[in-house]
């Protein structure tokens, strides 16, 4: 910091340096050689000041302000900006939409797969009982009817 910068900051934030926002306050205190009353004493203060000085970088507040105001203006012009009530309804609307999609998917699934339930049940039962005719799966073993014929000597 230079004396000129200090004067500029005084015009910007007032003559009272302790009322300045951080990090301008610390910068001015370092420039003027004032102690930082909020911190302890000794090595920690020295290290904190090193961290502070190492962290400093150039920033451009007028450009930042302009960019933020443009962004706010853009958001205001957006759809929800025209309907402020819609903003508060966003979450309920999202939940309701999700629920509707979920129910629609369930109904669609039922109508698509529903008519096949009887056949599916039969197939599952046949698999469970090991009936290759009903299940359509050839296990290579004789069926229950064939076993009866074998036992009675017809085959």
């Amino acid at each position, binding site marked *: 910091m230079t004396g000129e910068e200090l004067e500029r900051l005084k015009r910007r934030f007032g003559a009272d340096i302790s009322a300045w926002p951080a990090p301008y306050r610390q910068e001015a205190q370092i420039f003027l050689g004032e102690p930082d009353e909020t911190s302890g004493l000794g090595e920690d203060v020295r290290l904190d000041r090193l961290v502070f000085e190492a962290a400093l970088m150039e920033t451009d507040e007028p450009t930042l*302000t302009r960019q*933020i105001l443009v962004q706010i203006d853009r958001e205001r012009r957006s759809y929800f900006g025209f309907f402020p009530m819609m903003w508060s309804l966003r979450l309920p609307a999202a939940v309701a939409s999700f629920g509707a999609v979920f129910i629609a998917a369930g109904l669609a699934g039922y109508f698509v797969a529903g008519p096949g339930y009887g056949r599916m049940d039969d197939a599952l039962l046949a698999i469970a009982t090991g009936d290759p005719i009903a299940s359509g799966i050839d296990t290579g073993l004789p069926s229950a009817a064939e076993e009866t014929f074998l036992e009675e000597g017809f085959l």
Partner: protein
Amino acid sequence: MSGEGDTDDDAQRAIGEDENVLVRIASGEQAALARLIDRHGHGLRVFAARYLGSAADAEDVVQDVFVSVWKHAARFDPVKGRASTWLYRITANRCIDARRRRSLRAFIGLDDVHDILADEDPRADARVGARQELAIVRDGLARLPERQRMALLLRAVAGLDVPAIAEVMGASAGSVEQLLVRGRRSLRGHLTTVQHTNEGHEGTSR
């Protein structure tokens, strides 16, 4: 005694100005938002840039913070803490989100991990580079664990005291003190190691 009283009054005045500005922002006054950016934009941006290690990410975060303040200024409760503490809390949360997003993008291969201020103003680098000790501190700061780095930056850059840092980080005062102690110890260790190494190099080059 009177000096201390004056300092307290001055501090109260500063706190009062920020609160007053937030009330005006809540009523939709854009000039008040510009004033808040003028007062705190620099500090928030420096804090975010050093925490994230990227000036571009910090710019996005700070823009997002002020847009959020514009929308939700009425939510600020002066009973719960200072306006500056509230602003740094929002920024800290946004920084954590940004870091998580970046980690995720790096994990799925959308982003290269570059944790340096590559896109920073080169004049700043040159200025800091002129003082080797500051360059080493910056390097050490970037190597610290995230929470230690955040605590140290909130202390050094934002000028917050331990209770305010605890409020920003959502931690207890005790754990913030621990973070500060560990962070400072690591930084001192880094400074000592690098300086010894540099001295060794200089000794051998002679």
